[in-house]
């Protein structure tokens, strides 16, 4: 059980790196954005993981129940903000992809590169 | 007007003149040139009225602004700078007369730009001459480089621009790459950059570092054209002749040797250099340049290029003299700044006259030109004799003092160099004189021509006269520069 205490962290690293790989290695712009989403989600996982307390519960205080342990609310607040930031970035990125598709006819990075250097 | 304000006025007057020239330039060329003359005369008056104070031992100074702690823009008048400023302001007038004839006679483009930048360059020269510390000197040194670049590139065609690029490139590269680090090093070592009689470096830097610092300074001041950073000078020959005169006689190269002399006297201190063995190389480098440049000059066929190499040799005379570190040699160095200025400006003016009147640039083409242009060639002859150092010309006086300095220092190699270079000078100047005066003109009558435009002839006559007069009336300069020696001892 002890060693599983770090499993969350390993999972976050794994997801982070999968996303990171997609962002830097893939040529398709939408795939890059998908990778970016995964990449950011991994960070959410990191924060939420560190806020968890054994035997704790969500930090919403129940009336009439005493000696409850609560998990840390602060990382959750941060991640709420980060999720919003993530989806905002995503929306902007997709809008740009649409425009790229219109003016270049492709959403593959290497082809765009070729088109740019031909002209 | 206090002396401090006079310094500022000396800086500002050419600038105001430049603005004035720019404003009236489009409307009327006559008005433009009138403004030029008024400005030049005003500058002359301002500078020369400072002279009496200097003779009386005053050292007016003014601080404008403090850039960094202990580092300010500061001006101070001292004999060496005073002499340089007086010389430049005098020659500007002559040069303006000459330019008038040259630019019109040659129907040059962009004349307004020419006069504007000329004025700016003069302002920079004033800044260099009156700089109270190395930083101020450096600032105006760079302004001078930048403002003369368009003058050199005046013609604007590809070849000219390429040559101007060499000019600019070498001067900027040496100043930023070597001069600036040397300045910063000095500042870090001593905490000041002020020009102090007796130098500031003693006790702060020692051993081989002194030699290295001197290397940085001497080659950093590319304008002094010590080999191997002399290449810009022949390259700049593409410039119109008045600009060449500006470069060689009035401003640029003089600013170079002036800077080096000033660094030797006020930054290192003559005594400090004399006891520091790692700095001896400077004398030998100068000697090498004198000989090498003279030999190269021998092989030139283009008149202006020959004059350029002659300048390189003469500049190293000055550096060599300064590096001798004896009182007489220092005086000789400063005298030679003046003497060479008069002589070389005469030579260039004459070359320009020949070009305007006949479009001839090669030495071989000059056959019989003495008969067509007697005034010009007479002046040329005087200039050439001054370069060789024959009495009764200016060059004789300065060479005399340098020789004296060499004897004071018991430096036989310098004496030998002086003799050798005199022979070499004669070897490349005398043939020209011979061709010009005695060889028959073989050109067709279609190329028939007489003297150059009046203004040019007047100018060249004036400078030739100055060259001769300096032989007799050098006492004021001597008096002034003796103060210099007084403080170095």
């Amino acid at each position, binding site marked *: 059980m002890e060693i599983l205490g770090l499993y969350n962290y390993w999972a976050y690293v794994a997801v982070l790196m999968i996303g990171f790989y997609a962002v830097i290695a893939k040529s398709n712009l939408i795939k890059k954005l998908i990778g970016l989403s995964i990449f*950011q989600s991994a960070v959410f996982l990191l*924060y939420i993981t*560190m806020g968890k307390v054994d035997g704790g519960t969500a930090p919403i205080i129940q009336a009439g129940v005493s000696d409850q342990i609560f998990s840390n609310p602060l990382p959750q607040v*941060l991640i709420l903000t980060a999720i919003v930031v993530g989806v905002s970035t995503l929306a*902007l990125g997709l809008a740009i992809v649409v425009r790229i598709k219109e003016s270049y006819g492709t959403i593959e990075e290497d082809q765009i590169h070729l088109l740019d250097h031909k002209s | 007007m206090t002396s401090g304000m006079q310094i500022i006025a000396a800086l500002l007057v050419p600038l105001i003149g430049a603005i004035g020239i720019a404003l009236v330039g489009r409307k009327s060329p006559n008005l433009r040139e009138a403004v030029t003359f008024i400005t030049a005369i005003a500058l002359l008056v301002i500078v020369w009225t400072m002279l009496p104070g200097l003779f009386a031992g005053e050292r007016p100074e003014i601080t404008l*602004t*403090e*850039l960094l702690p202990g580092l300010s823009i500061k001006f101070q008048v001292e004999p060496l700078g005073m002499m340089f400023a007086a010389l430049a302001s005098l020659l500007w007038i002559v040069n303006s007369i000459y330019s008038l004839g040259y630019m019109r006679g040659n129907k040059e483009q962009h004349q307004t730009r020419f006069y504007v930048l000329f004025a700016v360059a003069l302002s920079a020269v004033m800044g260099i001459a009156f700089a109270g510390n190395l*930083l101020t000197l450096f600032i105006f040194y760079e302004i001078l480089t930048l403002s003369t670049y368009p003058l050199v590139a005046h013609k604007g065609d590809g070849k000219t621009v390429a040559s101007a690029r060499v000019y600019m490139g070498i001067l900027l590269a040496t100043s930023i790459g070597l001069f600036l680090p040397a300045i*910063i090093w000095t500042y870090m070592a001593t905490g000041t950059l002020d020009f102090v009689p007796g130098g500031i470096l003693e006790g702060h830097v020692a051993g081989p570092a002194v030699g290295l610092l001197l290397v940085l300074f001497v080659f950093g001041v590319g304008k002094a054209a010590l080999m191997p950073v002399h290449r810009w000078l022949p390259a700049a020959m593409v410039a119109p002749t008045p600009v060449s005169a500006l470069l060689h006689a009035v401003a640029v190269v003089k600013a170079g040797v002036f800077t080096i002399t000033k660094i030797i006297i006020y930054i290192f201190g003559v005594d400090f250099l004399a006891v520091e063995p790692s700095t001896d190389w400077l004398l030998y480098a100068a000697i090498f340049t004198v000989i090498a440049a003279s030999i190269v000059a021998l092989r030139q066929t283009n008149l202006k290029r020959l004059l350029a190499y002659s300048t390189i040799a003469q500049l190293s005379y000055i550096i060599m003299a300064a590096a001798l570190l004896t009182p007489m040699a220092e005086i000789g160095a400063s005298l030679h700044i003046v003497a060479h200025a008069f002589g070389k400006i005469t030579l260039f003016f004459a070359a320009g006259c020949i070009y305007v009147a006949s479009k001839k640039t090669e030495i071989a083409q000059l056959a019989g030109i003495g008969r067509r242009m007697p005034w010009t060639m007479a002046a040329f002859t005087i200039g050439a004799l001054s370069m060789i150092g024959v009495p009764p010309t200016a060059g004789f006086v300065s060479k005399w003092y340098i020789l004296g300095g060499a004897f004071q220092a018991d430096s036989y190699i310098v004496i030998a160099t002086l003799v050798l270079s005199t022979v070499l000078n004669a070897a490349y100047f005398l043939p020209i004189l011979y061709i010009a005066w005695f060889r028959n003109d073989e050109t067709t009558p279609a190329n028939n021509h007489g003297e150059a435009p009046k203004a040019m002839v007047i100018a060249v006559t004036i400078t030739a006269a100055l060259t001769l007069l300096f032989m007799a009336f050098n006492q004021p300069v001597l008096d002034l520069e003796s103060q210099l020696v007084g403080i170095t001892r």
Partner: protein
Amino acid sequence: MSIYQHLPALQVVVPMLIAPLVVLMRGRGLAWAMATATSMMAFIIAVSLTNIVLETGAVSYAMGSWQAPYGIELRVTAFSALLLLIVTAASTITLLFGKQSIDSQLEEHRQPMFYAAWLLVLAGLVGIVVAGDAFNIFVFMEVSSLASYILIAAGPNRKAMPSVFKYLIMGTIGATFYLIGVGLIYMMTGTLNLADMEVRLQEVQDIKPIIVAAGFITVGLALKAAVFPLHVWLPNSYTYAPHMVTAFFAACATKVSLFVLLRFEFLVFHQNLVEHVGHFSTFLIPLAVIGILLASGVALFESHLKRLLAYSSIAQVGYILLGASMATASGLTAGIIHMFNHALAKGALFFAIACLATQVSSLRLENLGGVARKMPWTMAAFVIGGLSLVGIPGTAGFISKWLLISAVLEKGTLGIFLVVAVLVSSLMAAVYFWRIVEVAYFGDAPKQSAELHEAPKWMLLGTWFVALANIYYGLNPSLPLLLSNQAAASLLGQLP
């Protein structure tokens, strides 16, 4: 409660809250007028804050009256004051004088959103600068980044889109790296407040996560600041953005990231991690030097004016970093004052380019032959900016180069190599800048040159304003010098 106490909050809130209103503006020029007025207000606030900081020292402000570390703290120091001045002044000047340029590059019905985004960039950047909370920096970093993607995407060329996409990807990676770093520090200290972090880090036993956090924060911010070799997003973004946007960003955008970077390195890590100074220096000095030399080298062969200057910006980031990586008072002062001086130089250059672009169709070097004859004022300002960039004395650039070289020389033998690098790159700068000057002044005039006129008067005025500022601060650098001295001192912990 006087209004002066609220200035740190107002600095951010004023541009931020007016931005949404600008979206609603429909009338001709109304959006511009509103944005400009707001930006000016921000500038005035920045000036008053600077005064306060100079008089009384650092100012702190508790958002929502919740004291740090429970609430979010705003903190204005001498360093932030300098940055505030740069950012707000850059925005105000570009907005005030750049209307014609923006009008020529952007359809009118899209302008309200553009100006709103502009104000959001401004709000975001000042938000980062005044923030005293690690996560708050992230939030405002994202506000400014998202808004800057919009501004760059406003570029008329279709190539603007792929370049802004690249910027978006790399910017987000940078921000996320930063977030990971902050997360790890938070994990080990339990606080997000920068000042509190500094204290609590001293008690941390397990140091490895902190080292990793330092790495991630450094890399993330370096990405945002376009530190070599993480600069690849910058050249195209600057090239294809509208000219005024380029002028604005070149003056301040990367510097804000550098500001955060320096704050983390010196305030949070240096005093708590053993040998962090050493790691930091050995890691960054080579990067800075290679960046300076390579970027200058690329600029030598670049023929598009804006891209050329963009590469030069990367080199200049290297200068700032080089100064900072000395980790000495003089080095930091040099780096910080270079932020200011480089903003002046690049501002003037890009402003002049915007002036050029109102007349010429292409900013490639081969199309600019003889342009100075038709546009003498523009090119004269360009030359001044360029001289400042090269570091010719009498201009602002000289001051920073001087300080940088003297700081580097303190390092002994290594310093001499660094000086050589700095000088070589200065010469390279002189060369690439001189290429432009030569072409503009002596090149053959292109065919359409008969129709060229001088740029609009109003824009010229702006250009000259910045150009003369280069000279003014070259001759009288006491204000930026004072601020950067204090900033360096506070970063090294010599000031309370």
